[in-house]
């Protein structure tokens, strides 16, 4: 199994009582709640945490893109990736991912990734997402074009990476008379493409298509949802005439280890509850699911099931739902090994810093995870098929 440290880079100094005056940690929370002096320290600290992961032997470090929110301070994740390209030595640098429909020039995303591929010595893994619903408010992009723009931008980026330029691309949303990437990427035929999702069937079908075989990353999901999504991917692969490999499946999950189960729970409790109840707080279904962002049938399903406002999560409900991994190294290791056998994933993206988790506990978590959990996982070849 390959093991990664996925950092969301939240505004960890958020004054929770102050933020409670506003209805969300996204879009509407004023940036007067952000203190630049604290922000400067946080960026340095977070980049340092990712560098530490590289030194400790993680297979990769991961960043992602979110806009106008205390949840994550990476509206431009490639800037962080660029810093890491120079300061890390062996870890893959995973940008999971860029939100394609939110930009008007996808060629620039192809260009930036190609630059990063050079600067990192061919160590990048790229990711493509649509951006979450609230980002259609904060980026002014029409959500009813979200799917069309995603597919079109993806096609354009892949062509830009793989075809000799200059060529012309004429789509419904993107038109370019000259596409001619300088530099072309280092990795051939192109850098790996991973797709993070919360289990949309449409995304799974698209990823598993024989012409793509993109690695599918399940994020922030109750355990049964993740199991179902991975099974759907394998079934889809089988329909397409091939067997899905563990390397095509990744599981991203908040993870916290401490000396004992009890200490781990005690230390994480406040921060994980703040994460789900405050940093992921949306005032209404409308901010999370703007019109046309998903098909009407998906929207109805999401409204009924998944997007019930999570403002009353406790560490116990989160553990029970399989949303987080927390405990002693032995507990967490055994849990991951059990999950791997059931789910068949080959990549574990451990989210080792979450919300307000402070520097000392984050570093302890990273070091303990790296020394007591990670080696066992890295030494075991992931099992191909689920037992369940």
């Amino acid at each position, binding site marked *: 199994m390959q093991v990664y440290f996925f950092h969301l880079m939240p505004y960890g100094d958020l004054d929770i009582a102050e933020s409670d005056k506003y209805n969300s940690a996204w*879009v509407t929370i004023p940036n007067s709640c952000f203190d630049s002096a604290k922000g400067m320290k946080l960026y340095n600290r977070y980049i340092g945490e990712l560098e530490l992961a590289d030194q400790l032997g993680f297979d990769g470090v991961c960043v992602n893109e979110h806009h106008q929110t205390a949840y994550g301070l990476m509206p431009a994740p490639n800037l962080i990736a660029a810093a890491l390209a120079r300061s890390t030595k062996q870890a893959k640098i995973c940008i999971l991912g860029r939100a394609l429909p939110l930009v008007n020039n996808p060629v620039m995303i192809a260009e930036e990734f190609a630059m990063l591929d050079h600067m990192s010595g061919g160590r990048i893994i790229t990711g493509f997402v649509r951006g979450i619903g609230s980002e*259609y*408010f904060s980026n*002014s*992009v*029409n*959500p*009813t074009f979200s799917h069309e723009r995603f597919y079109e931008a993806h096609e354009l980026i892949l062509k830009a990476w793989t075809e000799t330029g200059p060529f012309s691309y004429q789509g419904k949303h993107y038109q370019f008379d000259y596409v001619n990437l300088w530099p072309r990427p280092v990795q051939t035929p192109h850098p790996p493409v991973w797709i993070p999702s919360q289990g949309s069937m449409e995304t799974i079908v698209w990823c598993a298509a024989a012409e793509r075989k993109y690695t599918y990353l399940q994020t922030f999901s109750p355990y049964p949802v993740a199991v179902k999504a991975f099974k759907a991917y394998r079934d889809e692969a089988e329909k397409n005439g091939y067997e899905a490999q563990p390397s095509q499946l990744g599981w991203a999950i908040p993870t916290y280890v401490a000396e004992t189960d009890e200490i781990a729970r005690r230390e994480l409790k406040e921060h994980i509850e703040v994460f789900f109840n405050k940093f992921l707080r949306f*005032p*209404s*279904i*409308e*901010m999370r699911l*703007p*019109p*046309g962002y998903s098909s*009407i049938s998906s*929207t*109805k399903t999401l*409204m009924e099931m998944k997007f019930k406002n999570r403002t009353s999560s406790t560490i116990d409900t989160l553990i029970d739902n399989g949303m987080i991994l927390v405990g002693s190294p032995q507990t967490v290791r055994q849990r991951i090994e059990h999950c791997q056998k059931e789910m068949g994933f080959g990549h574990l993206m451990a989210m080792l810093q979450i919300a307000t988790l402070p520097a000392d506990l984050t570093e302890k978590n990273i070091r303990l995870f790296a020394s007591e959990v990670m080696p066992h996982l890295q030494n075991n070849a992931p099992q191909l098929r689920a037992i369940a």
Partner: protein
Amino acid sequence: MRETVLDVRGTNVRMLEAGTGPVLLFLHGIDGPSADPLLETLAQRFQVMAPEIPGFSRSLIPDWMMSVSDAAFFTLDLIAALGGDKLHLAGHSIGGWIAAEAATRSTSAIASLSLLAPAGVMPKQRPAVDVFLLSGEEGVRALFHDQALADKEIAARAEQPLDITLQNRAGLARLAWTPRMASVTLPHWLHRVDVPTYITWGVEDKILPFSTHEIFMREIAGAQFKSQQGCGHAIPQERGAEVARDMIAFIEGVK
């Protein structure tokens, strides 16, 4: 009201239809077509035709429809498909925007234009609410000044299939997401509206501020204006019968 379907160059358009007399084509507001006091009163004097704007209600968004410009040309095609004499064009909110855009393109088949709190121009002041950020019930409340009518509407919406509500939102977002409910260029072209025009607006409109009417009045020569005191954005429900009588008087003055 009876329901008909009209083929407009390959796109089926569902319409509510009622009454006899000169044809009045009414383009609905942000929540799709409804049989409200406005249409009922208009139908006493006109043959009222109220189409579902493509993308609203039970009509999926056609691939080719990317903007209000497309919806405006489609409206001219719809008018052509109806045939007959020049008709009276009217619209509320998003429908008012489409009607105004259609009239800037051609009035050769349009006898008069009635705009009820039309979207389409940048408001002079920021609206009190973002129509896309409100939850269902809050969204309905923001439409009305009279909250007793909002209660009735909330109850009515609860009976409406969720598919229709979601389709109305998606149809509106397709046309009016950016810039919100407005066009950068429409004010520049409104001078081309060369038919008698009636404009009315709710003083308490939270969706499209009342003061926005000044831009329409400035650009459309000779337009008549009536403010609606104690009325929000939902003119067809809040002032339906009165506005219909106004429109009847206005249109009969046109003849």
